[in-house]
């Protein structure tokens, strides 16, 4: 099976290289064209830049003349993602721990409810949540978005944790109780640290969902000071259609954080997603 250098495997190698090149062309176009002048993106879209110019990046970072502050956008995206995830991990793990340690009909019913919450799409609930949060002044606001995502991603997070808590032997709690530890100390010092892998999965999957989501952020943040990266990109492309070098500079700036995260966690991201659960 492992005869390595037959002509068949050589052909397959060539084919794989070709497929990969075609697949990667969009990335090549983004990077090279972000370093050209606008007119060169039209006269020479395929080639390397005749002369590397970083004007597009300077334009984008200074607001692109469109009041689109990408540094602030980066901060907003980061604040919303981080804030939601902290709440999701705390409340999600507590709820799951409760479910796992209270066996019974009600517990199973709630477990099913959380599962259904994952399957059924949440679009229908966006408008009512938007109306309520707008009424209390939380639309167009980072806190409002954190509340929204915490609510939306909660069943997924609880579901993720519950199975693992259930599989954890009760002996840990027994031993801790003998030592006089109360439920919270046991949970915080002994139980949760054993969940590091699943906490990592929950953090990664929720990060990908929240960071990349456009729909809710357009609804809640359009035109506000709290605009996130997807919202800024959307507004920018409407404002400066066809200035591709600037658009691509913005694209690169907004993709950079997730690409850096991807470089360090790609294996974990792939295995989490391969399980077939998505928020």
């Amino acid at each position, binding site marked *: *099976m492992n005869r390595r250098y037959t002509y068949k495997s050589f052909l397959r*190698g060539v*084919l*794989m290289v070709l*497929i*990969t090149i075609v*697949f990667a062309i*969009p990335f090549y*176009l983004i990077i090279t*064209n972000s370093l050209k002048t606008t007119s060169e993106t039209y006269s020479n*879209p*395929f080639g390397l830049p005749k002369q590397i110019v970083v004007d597009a990046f300077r334009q984008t970072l200074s607001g692109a003349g469109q009041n689109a502050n990408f540094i602030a956008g980066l901060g907003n995206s980061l604040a919303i993602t981080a804030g939601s995830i902290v709440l999701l991990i705390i*409340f999600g793990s*507590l*709820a*799951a*721990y*409760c*479910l796992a*340690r*209270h*066996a019974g009909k009600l517990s199973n019913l709630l477990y099913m*409810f*959380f599962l259904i*919450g994952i*399957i*059924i799409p949440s*679009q*229908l*609930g966006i*408008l*009512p949540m938007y109306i309520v949060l707008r009424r209390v002044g939380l639309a167009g606001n980072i806190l409002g978005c954190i509340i929204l995502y915490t*609510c*939306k991603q*909660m*069943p997924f997070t609880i579901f993720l944790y519950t199975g693992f808590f259930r599989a954890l032997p*009760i002996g840990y*709690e027994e031993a801790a109780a003998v030592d006089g530890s109360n*439920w919270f100390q046991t949970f915080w010092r002994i139980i949760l640290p054993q969940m590091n892998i699943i906490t990592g999965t929950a953090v990664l999957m929720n990060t990908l969902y929240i960071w*990349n989501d*456009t*729909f809710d952020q357009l*609804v809640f943040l359009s035109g506000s000071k709290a605009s996130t990266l*997807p919202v800024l*990109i*959307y507004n920018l*492309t409407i404002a400066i259609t*066809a200035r591709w070098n600037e*658009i691509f500079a913005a*694209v690169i700036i*907004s*993709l950079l954080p*997730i690409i850096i995260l991807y470089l360090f966690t*790609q294996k974990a*991201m*792939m*295995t989490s*997603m*391969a399980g*077939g659960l998505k928020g």
Partner: protein
Amino acid sequence: MTSKKKKWKGGVQVPWYIIIPGLVCSLTAHFIAPIRGAMYAFTDFKGVGEYNYIGFTNFINIFKSKADVAAILNTFKIAVPFVILTLFFGLLLALALKDVIKSRNILRAIYFSPVVMIPMAVSQVWKFIFDYDGPLNILLNHLGLSELTTNWLGNLDTAIWCVLVVLVWQNMGYTMVIFNAGLESIPTDLYEAAAIDGASSWKRFRHITLPLLAPSFTIAVVMMTITGLRVFDQIMSLTGGGPVNMTHTLASDFYYQTWNKFRYGYGSALALILTALISVIGILQVVVLQKKEDSVR
């Protein structure tokens, strides 16, 4: 000992109230809010002021409107080939990478990378590629195929298929890792035994790989169908629903009607159709595919 264990499982030690924040959040977003949304679907709510319950009027108007019917049809036009193509290419990539040893990890990382990127951002490069003055038309002109050039995203015959290309490109890495995981779980001695018995590589694929990949197919079909039905970002970034509002999907039409035209009731009716569609198809798929999975085994 057993009685003590029972006492633990009975949950004396873990207080019940720690479930409250998580439960309230979930109930709000996945139960109370959607029901409220479903109720809006039967009203003429415009966002401000009073509203009346108007029965199925919104739904009747949706089916009378050319653009909204197009949105429903587009949803399927995208979702069906999307599922087929992502499964096909994902399986192809996973199989191709199975025996590649040296560069497997780097290739896998490249193919999966679009999955983690903001769709609104990466789709911009495809808008550039499909632009009338863009790389695709330039390439076609160079190849002497200038009669094929068109305004790809502004042409009703091509716009939806361009969106499909972008979607498949961004998601085939996702199905690839699902099939990767499936392939890795197949024990190699099965192949060795089959090879000793003289089974051709097609036969090994047909009788070992495919049946044992059944669980992966289930996951991939369900995930891709749900992704394919709720396409939004790519529509917003590539066509914006145009030309003449004929390239919307249900999700983007819901956004457009609700937040651009402030027809809260009408938009909610579109969202209700989308939700019903995804829920029914999602549940049906899980049931049907799981049965099939069992019978293949």
